[in-house]
């Protein structure tokens, strides 16, 4: 009985093809089950006040009725200057973030800095920078520098360091070794290896990350004013508190058009530069 008879062999079912290994299937099912549990738990315990929901359609209709027609006279009074300020906050914040993130990205790239402790330190700075939302950074910087554009610039910069640094260090790690080794072989100093070996390879990635973040920062800087960090958000906050919804509507329309223009400009620049 130690050898299978031909009869039992023929009776064996044909091998079934599975797309995933058992371990993969278990992992996937676990993720599905845990996600389902999380959703059910959230649905059952989240606090929703039903009384507020009854008049939601009325409130929404009221919101739009009060917004239209826009208070156009408000634009030259306050919105225009605030808009320019928002633009400067976003751009300066992005530039400052680029300056701060560049050396950190070189520290974080494992092929450039061969020191795990320094890599880890830079990664830690990136994660902390990204975890704290720009509005919360703005709260902190308003407490330090007082209300105004300076706090806005700093919060945009500190929020962007993590984003730019992470993406740029990943681009650095993907840089090819060839040019770097060639320069090393000529006895080039380390600074020159950086400028002529790494930089030309990662420059497109650098500018594409910078443009991407600038686009995001234009959006973010529009709300920083809600906590006093300058820009068009200050005007928005004032109009909201006064319940001047026609001014709110105008500001929202202005923000929308700026965002659309920014998207067009960044995609044009990206096509030309990269």
């Amino acid at each position, binding site marked *: 009985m130690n050898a299978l008879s031909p009869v039992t062999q023929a009776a064996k079912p044909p091998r079934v093809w599975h797309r995933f290994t058992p371990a993969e299937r278990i*992992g*996937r099912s676990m*993720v599905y089950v845990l996600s389902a549990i*999380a*959703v059910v*738990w*959230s*649905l059952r*315990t*989240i*606090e*929703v*006040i039903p*009384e*507020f*929901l009854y008049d*939601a359609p009325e*409130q*929404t209709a009221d*919101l739009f009725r009060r917004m239209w027609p826009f208070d156009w006279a408000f634009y030259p009074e306050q919105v225009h200057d605030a808009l*320019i*300020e928002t633009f*400067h*906050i976003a*751009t*300066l914040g992005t*530039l400052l973030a680029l300056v701060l993130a560049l050396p950190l990205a070189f520290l974080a790239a494992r092929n450039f800095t061969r020191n795990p402790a320094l890599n880890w330190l830079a990664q830690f700075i990136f*994660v*902390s920078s*990204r*975890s*704290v*939302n720009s*509005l*919360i950074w703005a*709260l*902190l910087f308003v*407490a*330090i*520098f*007082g209300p*105004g*554009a*300076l706090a806005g*610039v700093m919060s945009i910069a500190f929020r962007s360091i993590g984003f730019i640094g992470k993406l740029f260090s990943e681009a650095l790690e993907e840089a090819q070794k060839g040019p770097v080794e060639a320069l090393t072989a000529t006895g080039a100093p380390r600074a020159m290896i950086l400028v*002529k070996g790494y930089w030309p390879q990662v420059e497109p990635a650098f500018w594409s990350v910078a443009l991407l973040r600038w686009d995001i920062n234009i*959006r*973010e800087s*529009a*709300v920083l004013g*809600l*906590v006093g960090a*300058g820009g068009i958000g200050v005007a*928005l906050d004032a109009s*909201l508190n006064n319940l001047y919804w026609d001014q709110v509507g105008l500001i*929202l329309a202005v*923000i*929308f058009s700026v*965002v*659309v223009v920014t998207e067009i400009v960044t995609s044009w620049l990206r096509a030309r530069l990269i």
Partner: protein
Amino acid sequence: MSAPAAPGRLRPPAFPANWPARLAWAGLVIYTIYATSVLDVTLARFIAGLGNAGHFLSRMFPPNMAPDKLALIYTGMVESLQIAVLATFAGVLLSLPLGLAAARNLAPVAVYGPARAFIAICRSFHPVIVAILFVKAVGFGALAGVLALIVATMGFVAKLFAEVVEEMNPKQVEAVRATAAPFLNVLIMAVFPQVMARFVGLTVYQFDSNLRNSTMVGIVGGGGIGAPLFTAYQRFDYDVVLTILIIIVALIMLCELVSGRVRRIFQ
């Protein structure tokens, strides 16, 4: 004396000067100087701010670990997490059909044009602004935060999902279509197997992003940890602010670890 006086080089330099790039750099520097002067960002203010920062940090330390504060923070943090979970779940469910409708290779022009426009509108407003509008529409509380983040989720996931669908291999779609399969079967047998891994990746990424934003919608009344954070800030309870910040950063780091694992499972 007899050496050739010609200053020209025998070979062109290995790294010739790139004048357009230099001009662009100079332009950036000039803009920076101009913008700092317009914004009244001066060194004096910066230095005064550094003094304030010392004062501010000294009031932050040590973080406040009083049990009543921790209970308050726990409630807020759990609500933030719930907002993120629900917004990701509902937003992703809505993004699936929206992303397919916005894919040029699957949908006719009459469908993908409006779908693209809708996604663009969702993307263009910051979640906080959307939260303000929803607070007006459905009142204070977590629901406004969930709805605001659903809009943000649709703007991001549906846009990138549409791009993923547009990049997929058309051969499998053609093969399934050649069997006269109805549209739903084309989706299930040809489209989803190709794009689901990327879709899960996008979902996981958006969950991280929603968690970050759910800590913030509370500032405008959208529920979550933002409300206790803003209250503590306005009362100058900076030690409580620090506790909340530490907990937020820790939770987000934990979620990034988990989402990294999930992404690896689905690759």
